[in-house]
């Protein structure tokens, strides 16, 4: 313990008003520090002097004065008990009220989270997984097969159908495609989502090897 800390406690210790644990710590310090011991002695001396002098000055009423005072004091009746407006509430009513309000707020938040519908997902999460390219050879590309089925959930843009028809028409007699890259764009009729597929020559060659 430092002397500055000890000096904060010495005044209380002089009158025996320090908590026992602190008093023990202070006593340990006082055994080692002569300066703090001297300060404690000064405090005790002054307290003794004040108590000694004050203890000798006591006043009292004379009997005549006292009788007169009692007669004057008890002239009226004591007032009936009147509780202040808030006295009917328990002493910690404000604490109980705050706790109830806090619990109500938390309950409202939980209920709202349970009852309200989930937030709409972003568009990107609605996309179906990208289909893997088929390992089978492409079916025969004819104008009829390129036409969209009526029950498909998407449509093929008209210009793309025209390109596909042109590509099929330009196909040579040996059955090999006349172009290196074939692209296909699918547009969802419900959401307007566009999916772009691209097939290249290498992919077909490998398929054919199977």
């Amino acid at each position: 313990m430092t002397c500055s800390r000890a000096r904060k406690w010495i005044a209380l210790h002089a009158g025996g008003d320090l908590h026992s644990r602190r008093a023990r710590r202070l006593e340990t310090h006082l055994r080692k520090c002569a300066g703090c011991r001297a300060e404690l002695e000064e405090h005790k001396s002054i307290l003794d002097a004040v108590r000694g002098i004050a203890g000798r000055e006591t006043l009292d009423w004379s009997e005549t004065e006292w009788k007169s005072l009692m007669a004057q004091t008890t002239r009226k009746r004591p007032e009936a008990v009147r509780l202040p407006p808030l006295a009917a509430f328990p002493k910690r009513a404000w604490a109980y009220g705050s706790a109830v309000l806090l619990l109500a707020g938390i309950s409202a938040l939980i209920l709202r989270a349970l009852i309200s519908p989930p937030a709409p997902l972003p568009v990107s999460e609605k996309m179906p997984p990208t289909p893997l390219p088929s390992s089978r050879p492409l079916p025969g590309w004819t104008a009829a097969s390129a036409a969209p089925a009526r029950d498909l959930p998407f449509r093929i843009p008209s210009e793309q159908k025209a390109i596909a028809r042109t590509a099929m028409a330009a196909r040579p007699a040996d059955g090999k495609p006349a172009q290196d890259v074939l692209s296909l764009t699918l547009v969802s009729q419900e959401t307007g989502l566009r999916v772009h597929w691209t097939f290249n020559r290498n992919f077909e060659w490998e398929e054919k090897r199977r």
Partner: protein
Amino acid sequence: MDDKESRLVELVLSGRKEAFEPLVSPYRSLLLTLAFRLSRNVEDAKEISQETLMRAFRYLGSFDRKRSFKNWLLQIEMNVWRGRGARTWDERTLHELATRDAADGPEEKLAEAEVRRKLLACLQGLSPREREVFLLRDIEGRSIKETAEVLRLSSLSIRVHLSKARGKIRMLVKERFPGLMGEGR
């Protein structure tokens, strides 16, 4: 509050006014002396004590019987004193006090009165709250808990005020009256 006091309170509240005197009689000197220590004036002390007893009688119905009756009276007296402005003592009051007993006494009383005057001059350096705490704890001998109950403060707050009050008095005595400590013993 003991059973006797509780019975006396019941009697007063039931209309037996004469039961008030035995109820407050054990504290009549205590109230007057404390009022004097606060105000340092006999006439003021009598007025404060009288007002205290009148309030005690008037509001006896609201007294909580689980509490100490003495502490309740002291609390009323502190409130009365504060309501009167909690004045600090002037030099005239100190002189009057110092010579009150000495005027018709022997030489020793003159010396004692001088010591008392010097000590009271040191108490004047305290704030009203510090003086209340100091008087109740160090002069009236109330415990920390009782002092806290009378002044309606926490025990921690009482300790803080008490520590400050004792520290101030020590400094004042050392500065102004270095020989006083030996005289007071």
